[in-house]
């Protein structure tokens, strides 16, 4: 595929992270999309599930890695296997259920059977059809190269040369630990919500990586609705915090815990806030005072397509679906140890705010769709977008937060996201 690249790509690449520009082709061009499936989704670590979706041996969840369907299955030894949901005989999907319990996966076409790890264990009528000559060990379902369980999030990659998972997170790990290394661990509320947004997946990923800037404009109506009717609509306060970025990941943490708690009270309710506050001493024991008490994460995205709103307790995958569509797969994330009424309250509030019918969520999705709608003609399609917001600082001037950071309302992490995306796109092979 390398040959076509030079032609397809504008002279300076699609992304000029220095100048802060984005070539609109990355959102609509089918050739870019096809390459992206190979070079981004085929090469990097991808989140496929939360371990709480498959608690017992034989439990499975059918997920996606890019557009490829995969089965995530709990093994009898407690480990987790991830493999392509495709029979090696003539290619039928091995499993049609969204989730469930299985002993084996038997193909509905000619009955070839695979075990929970995707190994081919039976060729139908083997002796009758001279199947003995087929080496079953060579015809198992295609397995991922590596799997990693990161505080309950199951990641997998097709790439045997993918970096170790911690190296993949890089400097951002310090921040993601703050979200996922919760005392007693996390789980997701049962099930999953899926819906289809008519926009390129990167629009969701980029926003969760780097875009607190949109909030006061995109969500103005919802914010107004949440406020007491007689409260004057002033300019909302500027978030006091830092935006981290590394290897395409990004997010924001704030030291204005009081403001963050007020927002939690509004969006999640007083009980959830009180519960969360009660967990901070425990957090501090593990992660120290800064990550325990003194700061709170706001939003983040693990490259490429795992979005997180820690305050709103939503976790979501931006699943690519052609250049102009994505599926959003969303869960409510709760502490495993939280009392049932806190989990229930979180479930209700998260669904109400950030989910298929979420009052905040809706505004984001429609804005992304509006971006896509302007990408039909040659003028709109050849547009260069402005990605220059923020100073692009590298270090926290107060020396509080580690790694590469800018002030919260910056697009530095978006520049990082697209630069990392382009790096993968321009590297040949796996």
């Amino acid at each position, binding site marked *: 595929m390398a040959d076509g690249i030079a032609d397809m790509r504008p002279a300076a690449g699609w992304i000029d992270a220095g100048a802060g520009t984005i070539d609109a082709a990355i959102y609509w061009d089918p050739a870019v999309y096809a390459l992206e499936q190979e070079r981004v989704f085929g090469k990097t670590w991808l989140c496929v599930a939360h371990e709480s979706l498959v608690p017992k041996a034989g439990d499975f969840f059918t997920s996606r890695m890019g557009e490829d369907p995969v089965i995530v299955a709990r093994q009898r030894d407690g480990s987790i296997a991830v493999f392509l949901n495709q029979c090696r005989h003539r290619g039928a999907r091995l499993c*049609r*259920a*969204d*989730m*469930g*319990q*299985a002993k084996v996966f038997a193909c509905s076409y000619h009955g070839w059977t695979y075990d929970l790890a995707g190994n081919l264990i039976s060729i139908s009528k083997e002796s009758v059809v001279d199947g003995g000559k087929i080496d079953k060990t060579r015809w198992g379902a295609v397995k991922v190269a590596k799997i990693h369980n990161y505080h309950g999030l199951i990641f997998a990659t097709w790439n045997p040369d993918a970096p170790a998972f911690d190296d993949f997170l890089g400097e951002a790990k310090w921040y993601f630990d703050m979200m996922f290394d919760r005392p007693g661990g996390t789980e997701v*509320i*049962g*099930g*999953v*919500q*899926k*819906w*289809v*947004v*008519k926009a390129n997946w990167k629009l969701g990923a980029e926003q969760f990586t780097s875009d607190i800037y949109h909030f006061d404009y*995109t969500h*103005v*109506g*919802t914010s*107004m*609705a*949440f406020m007491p009717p007689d409260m004057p609509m002033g300019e909302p306060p500027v978030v006091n915090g830092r935006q981290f970025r590394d290897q395409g990941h990004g997010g924001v943490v704030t030291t204005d815990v009081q403001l963050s708690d007020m927002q939690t009270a509004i969006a999640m309710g007083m009980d959830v806030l009180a519960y969360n506050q009660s967990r901070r001493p425990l957090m501090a024991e593990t992660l120290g005072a800064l990550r325990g008490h003194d700061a709170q994460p706001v939003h983040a995205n693990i490259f490429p397509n795992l979005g997180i709103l820690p305050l709103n307790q939503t976790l979501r995958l931006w699943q690519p679906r052609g250049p102009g569509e994505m*599926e959003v797969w969303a*869960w*409510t994330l709760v502490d495993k140890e939280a009392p049932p009424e806190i*989990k*229930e309250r979180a*479930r*209700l509030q998260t*669904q*109400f705010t950030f*989910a*298929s*019918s*979420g*009052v905040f*969520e*809706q*505004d984001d*999705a*429609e*804005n992304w*769709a509006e971006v896509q*709608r302007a990408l039909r003609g040659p003028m709109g399609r050849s547009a260069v977008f402005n990605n220059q917001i923020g100073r692009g600082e590298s270090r926290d001037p107060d020396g509080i937060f580690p790694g590469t950071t800018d002030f919260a309302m910056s697009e530095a992490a978006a520049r990082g996201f697209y630069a990392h995306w382009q790096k993968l796109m321009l590297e040949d092979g796996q």
Partner: protein
Amino acid sequence: MSYEMVLPYRVSDAGEPADLPLWHSVQQFLFQEAALLDRRAFAEWLDMLDDGIRYWAPTRYSRTPRERAGEWSRPDQAAHFDDSKQFLALRVRRLLTDRAWSEDAPSRTRHLVTNVQVRRLADGAIEADSNFLVYRGRVDDCEEIFSGARHDRLVGSDGPYPFRIAERVILFDHTMILANNLGIFF
């Protein structure tokens, strides 16, 4: 492992089919409701809802034959809507700010309400089952179809409408919502 769908709500065995006048009255109530929604008279619509309403749309899944009973989310699992009246009122308030961009311009909806069946329960409440197909137009060429059934519990009212909706379960015929959002009411 029955082939029959296991519904996510309890089907009461008490009660009996409504007589014709009651059936008509309930059906007209549901048609009035649909007309309010399609005319975007949302504030008036809220008056049709009981203050204690649960407005619930459980998610749905493809399941293996042995796990058909898990087709619908349980009440404590993922749901597309799980709203109190307070939540619903906030949704309406949001729309009325004129700054809810996801509904700018507002969706052009049409609620086709069909197959209305009504039962009067022993406790005087009324159960109404209906099918719906909601057409939603957006922009110039975006069309969405939502298909499903509703299971409503109504109680009598002496307000402008003869009933209030005390419970609504919305059963979508979708496992994945094929729309940018569920920014409308069902």
